[in-house]
């Protein structure tokens, strides 16, 4: 039972990070119908920036801090903001260089261009930090006993931060002027332009926020997980994209729940014994995720939260 509860918490915390990355996919897809393959690699660079900023401030993995202090907290906050801004600007830059020239091109051209950007970012990361696992700073945060389980404080923190960010995004999109403009562009780019919306600006803002969230996710990731490497984002990106599709691509709430569900499946699959699947469930976690995804899509072809929009004729 304790194992099950532990796995549940681990799954939720992991899922929250997937959800944050998935938001970037779903926002970009919603507005220009592009699978932004480079998004995961923006996330990778975010983890590298976090490490770089912290080591500039003297907090390195080789000399981890022994106690939490306000100085450390402010340094972490700085790293978080730095990672957010870096990724956000990178996202806007990528959109400008690699996607905007292709906005009227055949549908798959930007996809290949995105793959190209992804390869470029991977190599940039590799040139920067080499192709080994780069350790994060391990923070002196303990765990608390909650009933039968011993919960890492980090897990709770990750969940809380993720929920705050997602709520903020939801407010931004539904309540503000710029959010309304984003929704308008997503629905019909030409009509929005005719209504006086600066389409290029709004697409830029979308990339800014989406990539920025990946940066924030990268920071949170650095608190919870032990290390990163240049290929990390590509793999995480695929799973996060799956989460976005599961929730209904283009739908923000869907991406959040999709992320959490994927995180939970990922974690709970461990409980499948080796008698059911050879080598135990953990070896099959990706297969199980995709199998469940296919099953869900068979019954709800637009994802869990996606509206089944009638085709425009």
């Amino acid at each position, binding site marked *: 039972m304790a194992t099950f509860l532990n*796995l549940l918490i681990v799954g939720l915390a992991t899922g929250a990070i997937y959800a944050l990355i998935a938001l970037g996919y779903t926002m970009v897809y919603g507005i220009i119908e592009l699978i932004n393959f480079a998004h995961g690699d923006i996330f990778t660079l975010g983890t590298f920036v976090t490490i770089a900023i912290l080591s500039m401030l003297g907090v390195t993995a080789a000399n981890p801090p022994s106690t939490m202090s306000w100085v450390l907290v402010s340094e972490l906050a700085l790293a978080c903001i730095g990672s957010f801004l870096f990724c956000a600007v990178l996202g806007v830059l990528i959109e400008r260089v690699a996607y905007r020239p292709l906005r009227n091109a055949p549908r798959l051209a930007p996809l290949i261009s995105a793959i190209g950007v992804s390869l470029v970012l991977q190599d940039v990361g590799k040139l920067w930090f080499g192709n080994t*696992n780069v350790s994060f700073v391990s923070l002196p945060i303990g765990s608390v006993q909650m009933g039968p389980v011993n919960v890492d404080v980090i897990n709770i923190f990750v969940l809380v931060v993720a929920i705050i960010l997602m709520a903020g995004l939801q407010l931004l999109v539904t309540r503000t002027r710029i959010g309304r403009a984003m929704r308008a562009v997503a629905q019909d780019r030409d009509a929005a332009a005719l209504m006086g919306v600066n389409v290029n600006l709004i697409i830029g803002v979308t990339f800014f926020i989406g990539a920025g969230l990946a940066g924030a996710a990268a920071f949170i990731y650095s608190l919870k*997980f032990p290390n990163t490497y240049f290929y990390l984002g590509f793999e995480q990106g695929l799973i996060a994209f799956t989460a976005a599709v599961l929730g209904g691509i283009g739908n923000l709430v869907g991406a959040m729940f999709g992320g959490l569900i994927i995180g939970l499946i990922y974690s709970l699959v461990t409980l499948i014994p080796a008698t059911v699947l050879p080598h135990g469930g953990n070896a099959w976690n990706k297969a199980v995720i995709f199998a469940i995804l296919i099953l869900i899509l068979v019954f709800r072809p637009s994802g869990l939260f996606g509206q089944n929009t009638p085709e425009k004729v």
Partner: protein
Amino acid sequence: MRRSPSRIFASLLGFTLIIGILTACGAGNPGGSTPGNGSNGGTQGTITIKIGTEFPTTAGDASTGMPAQNGATLAIKEANDSNFLPGYKFVQVAKDDVGASGTHDQTVGQKNVTDLIGDPQVVGTVGPINSSVALAEMPTTNRAPMVLISPSNTNDCLTKETPAFECGGAKSKVNQLRPTGKVTYFRTATIDQYQGAALAVYGHKTKGYKTAYVIDDTEAYGVGLAKNFTTYWTKIGGTVLGSASIKQTNSYENILTEIAGKHPDVIFFGGNDSTGGITIRQQMKSVSGLANTPFLAGDGSKTSALAKAVKPLGGGPVYTSIPGIDPSQSPASKTFFDAYTKQFGPDAIGAYSAGGYDDTKILLNAIKSVVTSKKADAPKDSNDDAGAAKFRQAVIDAVQNIQYDGVTGHHSFDKNGDTTNHFISLYTIGDLGSGDGWKFLEQVDTSSLQ
């Protein structure tokens, strides 16, 4: 434009003609191409001998392949500098077996050795890193035949039919890998069987652990090592609580949480540092119940990266091993280490740097013995196919009979092409400031363990 078209015409034709005459070499003479026309650029009287290296040196596998290739480069450079074989110049032909997907690729590996075989001046090849690539390359090099020496392949099944559960009887791969029936593939890494046994004995007998949980990284090396460890561990009385087979991922928290519920005495990991070693050991620290559990792994995890990542975290002890003797026990290693760092920088050293260096030296020594004993002549130029076949066969025979003392100890090869050096060295994390951060514990001669 009122220029006369005929003038343009004439000038164009004239131009073509001039190009033609300038570039056409004397192909019209029955003497044909002038001797030494090949682009080896060697000075008069120097014969060029090429040595192929075949490692994954780009993208995802660069950290394992590049140090090995560097080792080979160093050996060849030293041979040329010291005039190792007067009248002969050694040239490295470096091939990279990384494929389209960014990791080592059998198809590319096979194509590489075919390329190398196609060049008569290539006498032998050092490589590959991965056992799976070796599977694709061995038949090709065996038919040629050309010698292939690997510094790192530890998969037992490449050279013999044991262990029976993997490649005994009908599962035997030896006949397919050795179509001519002769041994042309050699390796200086002690096979998994010995390393798994040494680790099991160390854990069970020396440290007194009773129960183990075994994880592997689904790659040929890791799976093989884990299987051999499990076999020997149970044979000497230990208990395996469970096993997991997980492809490299960013988080092992789930499986570790489950393992924590089983309270093993030790966790064994079969795999490389980058395919799970570092992450598993780091995450053990944050999973309650495993924070102080010992961690046991093979040579793939004995890297400075792992030591650096794990040391600041504290937690349970980490034990690893490498096949072969510890460089500190070998006088040659200091010289090698200094020369290597001077050439490629202190960070460039890797698990197989010394292996790549030694294998290349073995090949060089074999070539030298062939040339000095006049058993065969080195191929004259890049068209001498017949000479190449004869010379390569002589080199294979010389490698089979070699007695070599190098950085990784004394090597000679048994009838399967495996090294007779069965020493396994055991390590734990030591002082990060010195060397690669590992402290030598003891050295086991595993020949007696079987």
